[in-house]
């Protein structure tokens, strides 16, 4: 199977809320769409998420949060990634959960390419990831 490229996705829950149903639904939907999904479990620090992204060499990182701490934690994830030489233009960063509309634009400025709120169809998430993967710049070897 020479040259078999797979989309590798990290699904992680930063912060202290333990409600991981949404994260698991998305993880499963992406798996069923043929992707390799690494699920890290709940209560991850930004450093743990960035470290997992580094070790797993993922293409996509999806964060789920319901606690309201996203404006504090999400920029710290971006910084922890940058500290590890992973820049926001190399990976697709998206998030979901309870995120007020007013916070979406500021988060997009930090490097998040999409924020999916309650009621999003998993098909929309899959489509978004696939379209990004189809048009992404070739990766440095």
């Amino acid at each position, binding site marked *: *199977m*020479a*040259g*078999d*490229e*797979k989309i*590798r996705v990290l699904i992680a829950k930063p912060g202290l809320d333990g409600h991981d149903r949404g994260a698991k639904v998305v*993880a*499963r939907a*992406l*798996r*069923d*769409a*043929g*992707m*390799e*999904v*690494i*699920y*890290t*479990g709940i209560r*991850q*620090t930004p*450093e*743990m998420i960035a*470290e*997992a992204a*580094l*070790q*797993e*060499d993922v293409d996509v990182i999806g964060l789920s949060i319901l606690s309201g701490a996203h404006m504090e934690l999400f920029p710290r994830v971006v910084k922890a990634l940058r500290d*590890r*030489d*992973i820049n926001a233009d190399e990976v697709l960063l998206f998030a979901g959960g309870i995120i007020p509309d007013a916070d979406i634009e500021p988060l997009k400025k930090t490097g998040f390419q999409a924020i999916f709120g309650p009621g999003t169809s998993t098909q929309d998430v899959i489509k978004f990831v696939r379209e990004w993967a189809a048009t992404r710049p070739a990766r*440095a*070897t």
Partner: protein
Amino acid sequence: MPTVEDLVERLFAGNRRALSRLLTLIENDTPEGRRALRLLYPRSGGAHTIGLTGSAGSGKSTLSGAIAREMRRRSRTLGIVAIDPTSPFSQGALLGDRIRMQDLTSDAEVFLRSMATRGNLGGLAPATAGVVTAMDAFGKDVVLVETVGAGQDEVEVAAMADTTVVVLTPGSGDDVQAMKAGIMEIADILVVNKCDLPNADLLARQLASIVDAAPGERKTPILKTAATQSDGIEALLDALDAHRTQIAESKAGDAHRRAQARHQVLALARQRLIDRLVARHTSDGRLDALVAQVARRELDPHSAADVLIADDDLPRMS
């Protein structure tokens, strides 16, 4: 854009991002990945490679975590390769082994990589050996490979690891199960995990009687662990060390390494031959024609296989 040679240089300098990128190239079996392996292989061989196998739910991930923590306590650096199955329906995979090793993520001396089987049988992912080589060449003291939940016949891991640990749990079948060929015979160390459950001692005794009846000088050690409580892990590490010392110094160890090398070469050659055969006779339509004849019972499968390879120049050197 860095070349694969640059990446390999950075790997040798201890750059973890370079290691991670190379693991992807190796896993995807790209030409760059193969070139990297040519450079990495001569620098590998220093690590103690340990394979951990056993049925689904026997506690392999938890045990891997416990072994890793004890290895770190003994100041050893560690690579972990955790394998989970690819769905045969969607070709996707959900890789969840990090969940049981979350605390190890913040330790820079532990590098954990999840892999999906991508259609491979035998308990490993197709590129597992290459991924282990890269972690070994990176300089890890120990590389631990945790197989997908295996049954009775998934013995591939023994063809790759210095030391193979088979994990069993109480209540998972009688001693006849354990005497069946395959997974028991590859064990260098047997572990009865979840030993806080009833009948753990019974299982250990049954295993001991099987080990005693087996031919050969070396009696496979049987250890009892309760990985969730880290019970028995120190003794397991001592047994791992003892096995490593033994194979490093013995003739049996040499024979084992040669058998492994032979297995790896033949497995790769087999795969390349079959890939070429399929590619060639898919494009010329011969494979489909033969398959149709067999399906209509005009030709038996053995004869069809003979025809498929008969006038082929595959065995010749290219």
